[in-house]
């Protein structure tokens, strides 16, 4: 629908602009929270969390994985899935190539498994540097397969979400990934699997309205923007000014939509504690 688009457009462009500020090619990096300038390397060591104001910047998927998994424990799933161009959308493949070169990623999600605090777990991390982590066939397929693997291996599944929404160039095939991934969650749930969803900035549209909201626990990073429709479209629809903190993780927490907001520096310890508590139920191998 028309209104959907505005939301997508907004969040497709805004985080990109932010990304440019966040992680320039250069040596220095300016915090988009407080404006303080840092050496990029210094910020990287801080997992891109500003030491001054606590602002959580975009974290590349490989660094996210390194920050959470026990050293050398991570193996990747499904590295050979390639996106097609089912609707023969003009310049779609070129856009993908461009992002592949820019990020070194094949698609907008990395899946795999490893151990966190000693607990074996399956994992997916979406990377908004790639096509705003919009959900096309490959993203949906990789996530559904990772959940299926977790079910078969009887291990927990943890996902870090980020997305501007649907992958328009794949039309209804993109939309149907919402159904596919949600059906995979249902099967996993029926089998007693533990699923943890951690929403990072931004998580919108079809991702927000499918697996991101379906964890046994739903968390978010501080300040992450999360919603179905984007802020601008909501403003245009209801013609009123929205509160400053609309759709932030803290706003969602206050409205009962999240279990907790977790600082990136505490994430590994927090997840390990959950995995540890669930082990008592025989859920973690």
């Amino acid at each position: 629908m028309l209104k959907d688009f505005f939301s997508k457009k907004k969040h497709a462009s805004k985080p990109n602009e932010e990304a440019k500020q966040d992680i320039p090619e250069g040596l220095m990096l300016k915090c988009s929270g407080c404006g303080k300038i840092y050496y990029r390397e210094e910020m990287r060591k801080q997992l891109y969390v500003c030491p001054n104001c606590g602002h959580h910047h975009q974290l590349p998927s490989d660094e996210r994985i390194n920050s959470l998994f026990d050293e050398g424990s991570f193996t990747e799933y499904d590295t050979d899935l390639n996106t097609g161009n089912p609707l023969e959308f003009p310049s779609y493949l070129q856009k993908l190539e461009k992002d592949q070169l820019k990020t070194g990623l094949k698609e907008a999600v990395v899946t795999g498994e490893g151990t966190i605090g000693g607990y074996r777990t399956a994992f997916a991390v979406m990377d908004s540097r790639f096509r705003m982590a919009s959900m096309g066939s490959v993203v949906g397929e990789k996530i559904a397969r990772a959940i299926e693997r977790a079910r078969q291996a009887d291990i927990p599944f943890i996902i870090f979400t980020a997305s501007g929404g649907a992958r328009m160039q794949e039309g209804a095939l993109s939309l149907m990934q919402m159904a596919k991934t949600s059906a995979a969650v249902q099967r996993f749930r029926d089998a007693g699997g533990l699923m943890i969803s951690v929403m990072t900035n931004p998580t919108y549209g079809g991702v927000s309205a499918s697996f991101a909201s379906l964890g046994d626990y739903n968390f978010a990073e501080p300040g992450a923007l999360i919603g179905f429709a984007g802020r601008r479209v909501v403003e245009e629809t209801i013609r009123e000014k929205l509160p400053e903190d609309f759709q932030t993780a803290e706003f969602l927490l206050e409205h009962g939509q999240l279990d907790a907001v977790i600082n990136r520096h505490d994430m590994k310890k927090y997840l390990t504690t959950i995995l540890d508590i669930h082990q008592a139920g025989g859920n973690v191998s």
Partner: protein
Amino acid sequence: MKQVLEFEKPVIALREKIAELKTFTKESDLDLTEEIVKLETRLEKLENDIYTNLKPWDRVQMARHAERPTTLDYVEHLFTDFLEFHGDRYYGDDAAIVAGIAKYKGRPVTIVGHQRGKTTKENIRRNFGMPHPEGFRKAARHMQQAAKFGRPIICFIDTKGAFPGRAAEERGQSEAIARNLMEMSGFEVPIICIVIGEGGSGGALALGVGDRLLMLENSTFSVISPEGAASILWKDGGKAKEAAEKLKITAPDLKELGVIDSIIPEIRGGAHRDLQAQAELVDQVITEQLLELEKLDKQVLLEQRWEKYSKIGSYAE
């Protein structure tokens, strides 16, 4: 005043001309019967040309037609003993979705559908068929009940999308949609979903996960509206016509992409031309599909449903 769509103007003009000549023949001494017959033959051919060659954008217009039959129209024609039930038990009753129980040829069923209005007043009451979370949660509640009592579920899809409002966001629009997608994939009863008008994005899909996803011939099902896509692609919402072609949102295109299971034919000129006749065509398909699904063991039903969704997508490995 009947709504006239752009592409059918020649048909309407010719029909008016024929009616005019008929009146003239009746009221004067001149016999124009021969001329009338000629024009009627021409009309037949013209209608055939136009309605069998509908372009995606024509179908968008058809799907949005103000008089196009809605969920409650079909309910009235297809089911008996329909009882509408209200509320999600958490917050409110969303008039953009109707739900209830009825009988379909003797068997109990649960019915859920988006409901838009045909008049401005009704559309305002029903929020133009754009649900809030409480609408999706009402639907979920009724489908859970169907699963409990072993009733098949029939879903009618007819929405521009989930409502993008502040209250909807605050009350968890995303979660409400996500939960429906997940739960519908697991209900141990046959689920038949039919797109009868516009099927817009997540708000449409939230009633669209089942054993069969069917579309009326002139309905649409899309991840984004043509206007929205045009604005993104060409920064020009006016190029919606072009976007409608690129996005592959019509029933024949979606059948080819493997998104839907089959197409329910529409009477010539569109479903709104004759509700009774159209309902009969829908009826045939529901009966056919339901008989097939009812034969299946619960586990087989769920396994096939999973197979169906897990296959959708396009990638190379």
